[in-house]
């Protein structure tokens, strides 16, 4: 292997120390960037067009900057920001893989971007065909029968799924109150359960890091609406007993919900539908190369088994016998979960990603992701604790407990030190059942060289850990940030700061 690591952002350690003024500080009375096209209309005044009582006395103050200063300001801000295109981002559970540039261009096609969502089907056949094709592909990948593409993110998909669960149970004429989630679940799961109108019942993990089947059986009764699982779970471990779990839950008339955040691990290998899941959400921004955009937008389609199809949100694109496409709304639909058709351009990105990879390529994705994560676990052995040291899938969770015990350096210090080494940090303190957790998901797009450099850095950090690490990071645009003060002395806007 060559010495250099492709995924190490060797330029990161010097991201600007100088802070960048806010756009408000750059603002100067009378400065203008905006220009407008010639409409050729009468220049009616506001007073001629609108009633006095409705008109503001003075216009809202925004900014006053030139296009030149505007462009420079945000360009400089971009230089104070880490990103996948600068280096590796082994942020567990987030699947920060490299997203092919072709997907950016696909989503920017005028023929997709310049279409009004209310335009009649006769004028949007291309969009409808795209959405129908994507839906079919996602059903094939998950082994489900029908799908809604409306949910704009994973959490929205979860809540949509829980409302489907509720509608289904009601259709069976029963009221159920509980939804089971494992103690390793992501926070959105319990939060969604509450919004779905259910109580959360937590089932512990056993010493394998998997759902404790016995413990599960004890909480299963006919008041259980269903269970929410990720598989592989948030420890990166495959729930080997999933078939028994499914049988048990179905046994009491409950439904299985699949949180698809970790779908990247099993593409083309196994399918939630085959495992017995009834409802599945996918995070297209994790598995299907929708870039994260600094926190969003994403897309969280929800696929379901045959029996739940009649309850899906509508409208849903459907193939007509004449080869054309139209919209249809399932007869017992729970209603819409988005103002329009979901994050359409993100869906288009995902479709281009599926086309370029194909069935064969998707399986390669899973293989690469799982290979990388297992290799990392092997490297870190002996330097970090590995609470569940068994074959993992797309991510591995290690613990800095030994380091903390030895020199008082915690997971957060390790994370900040890694920033100095030119990598983004792993996810820390999640899942909650592992203390000093470092959740590492290399993804399939990082090369062995990058993984080697990442592991070397992590090992060096553990082995050389010292008090000084509490001062890390020292080479980033700003040093360690005072989060407590931000909450204590809340400054949510520039105006609040002016008053403060």
């Amino acid at each position: 292997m060559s010495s250099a690591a492709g995924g190490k952002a060797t330029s990161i350690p010097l991201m600007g120390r100088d802070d960048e003024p806010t756009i408000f500080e750059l603002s100067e009375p009378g400065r203008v960037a905006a220009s407008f096209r010639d409409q050729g209309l009468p220049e009616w005044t506001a007073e001629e067009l609108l009633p006095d009582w409705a008109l503001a006395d003075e216009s809202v103050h925004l900014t006053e900057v030139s296009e030149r200063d505007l462009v420079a300001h945000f360009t400089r801000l971009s230089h104070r920001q880490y990103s996948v295109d600068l280096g590796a981002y082994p942020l567990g559970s987030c699947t920060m893989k490299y997203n092919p540039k072709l997907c950016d261009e696909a989503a920017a096609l005028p023929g997709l971007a310049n279409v009004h969502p209310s335009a009649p089907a006769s004028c949007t056949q291309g969009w409808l065909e795209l959405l129908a094709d994507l839906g079919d592909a996602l059903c094939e990948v998950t082994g489900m029968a029908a799908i809604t593409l409306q949910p704009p993110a994973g959490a929205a998909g979860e809540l949509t799924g829980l409302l489907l669960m509720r509608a289904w149970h009601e259709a069976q004429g029963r009221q159920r109150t509980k939804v089971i989630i494992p103690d390793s679940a992501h926070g959105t799961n319990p939060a969604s359960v509450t919004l779905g109108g259910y109580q959360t019942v937590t089932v512990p993990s056993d010493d394998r890091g998997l759902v404790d089947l016995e413990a599960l059986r004890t909480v299963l009764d006919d008041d259980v609406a269903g269970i929410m699982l990720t598989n592989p779970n948030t420890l990166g471990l495959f729930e080997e007993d999933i078939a028994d779990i499914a049988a048990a839950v179905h046994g009491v008339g409950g439904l299985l919900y699949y949180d698809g955040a970790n779908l990247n691990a099993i593409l083309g290998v196994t399918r939630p539908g085959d495992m017995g899941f009834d409802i599945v959400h996918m995070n297209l921004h994790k598995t299907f190369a929708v870039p994260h955009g600094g926190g969003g937008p994403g897309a969280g389609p929800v696929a379901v088994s045959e029996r739940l199809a009649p309850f899906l949100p509508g409208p849903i694109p459907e193939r007509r016998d004449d080869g054309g496409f139209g919209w249809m709304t399932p007869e017992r639909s729970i209603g819409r979960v988005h103002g329009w058709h979901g994050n359409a351009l993100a869906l288009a990105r995902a479709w281009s990603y599926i086309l370029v990879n194909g069935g064969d390529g998707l399986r390669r994705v899973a293989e690469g992701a799982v290979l990388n994560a297992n290799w990392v676990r092997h490297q870190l052995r002996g330097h970090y604790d590995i609470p569940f040291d068994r074959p993992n899938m797309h991510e591995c969770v290690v613990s800095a407990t030994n380091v903390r015990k030895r020199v008082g350096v915690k997971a957060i210090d390790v994370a900040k030190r890694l920033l100095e080494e030119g990598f983004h940090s792993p996810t820390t303190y999640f899942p909650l059942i592992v203390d000093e957790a470092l959740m590492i998901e290399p993804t399939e797009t990082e090369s062995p060289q990058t993984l080697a450099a990442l592991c070397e850095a992590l090992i060096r950090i553990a082995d050389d850990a010292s008090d000084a690490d509490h001062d890390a990071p020292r080479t980033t645009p700003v040093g360690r940030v005072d989060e407590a003060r931000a909450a204590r002395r809340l400054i949510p806007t520039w105006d609040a700061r002016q008053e403060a």
Partner: protein
Amino acid sequence: MGHYVPHTDDEIATMLASIGLSSLDELFDVVPDALRLAAGLDMAPGLSEYDTADEMVRLADRNRTDLVCFAGGGAYDHDVPSAVRRVAFRTEFVTAYTPYQPEVAQGVLQALFEYQTLVARLAGVEVANASLYDGATACVEAVNLAVAATGRQTVWVSGGVHDTWRDTVRTFAAGTGHELVDVPLVDGRTSWPADGAPGAILLQHPNKLGCIEDLAEARAVADRTGALLLVAFDPVASGLLRTPGSLGADVVVGEGQPFGTPLSFGGPYLGLFTCRLEHVRRLPGRLVGETVDVADRRAYVTTLRTREQDIRREKASSNVCTNQTLIAVVCAIQLSWLGTAGLRELALRCARATRATHDAVLGIDGVTPMATAPYFREFGINLPLEPGVVVERMAEEGFLAGVPTDGGLVVAATERRTAAQIDAYADALRKVLS
């Protein structure tokens, strides 16, 4: 083709060996045989980048982008300057994750801080979050906040709220068990019930018929009933109209698409969520705050995290995690590009084009207004033909005629519409109706 998995066969062999395996399949030994997808996915093999691009172009070309757009209903056909596109889609913004490590995320964090400031000003309240999914789901969160704040399950929802937004609120109410009461429009304005004790009253301003609501009256109703006043506003209207906050709204939500985001077949759009400071601890989603680093340098960070699902779990104020940050950055840049004078000019030009369109089409036989109340950037008309049919016929003439609602058609015109287009639109409509 898996172009994006870099490993060579040699590397795969080496890596497998170093973890004690001899084949890629063995990586999945933990998966019970019964669950293995023996035959693989029933999908076409991967294409080259170019063949993929060709297929995407084929699909794109099957959409009518030649239609001159007079449709609104929450999605507006505004111009977007090249500078905004170029800067907002820099890869550092596009390929970053949620700013969990503020030391290397000041770019996104500061952009969001500026976004929050700009949006709070548009709404006229003190706090804005870092974005929600879209206008419809922002209404859902507003209702949830209000019910939690007042402890009252009943919510009055004005019939002036976009149909699809109301549907969305209703869908989620099934889970939370909120009781929604529909309040009708009378001549384009919400006419509130005389009595009752709702936890919140929700109206849209300007509403789905384009009409300007009487927010002062709504405030009075809220005061009388002890409800929170929730306003779904059109942020462009703040270029000319009094802000909802200045008229007493407690929570102001809206759709941010008009600021820099193309029509995009409906998404990704931008859920604006703002509220009075007193409600900040119930704020859904992420909030960026200013603070300092160890060296006392100005820095930004996501704050009041204890509201959020990853910490508060089942007691969280909302389940939102991934939001629409990139679109919020677009919005911040577009608002900065418009600036104080530009926003006013934008609003004025939309109002002018709408007035011109209104006057042109109301001269047509059989076309009558759905309401007489003053409108801002869209207006509703009743037609002698079923609106859906009119939309189809108008498409043949090269226009997207409007958005059908309540048996009529809502017509919108933005700063992009010219006198010539407006005249042509009226001529086409006259032809279609004759």
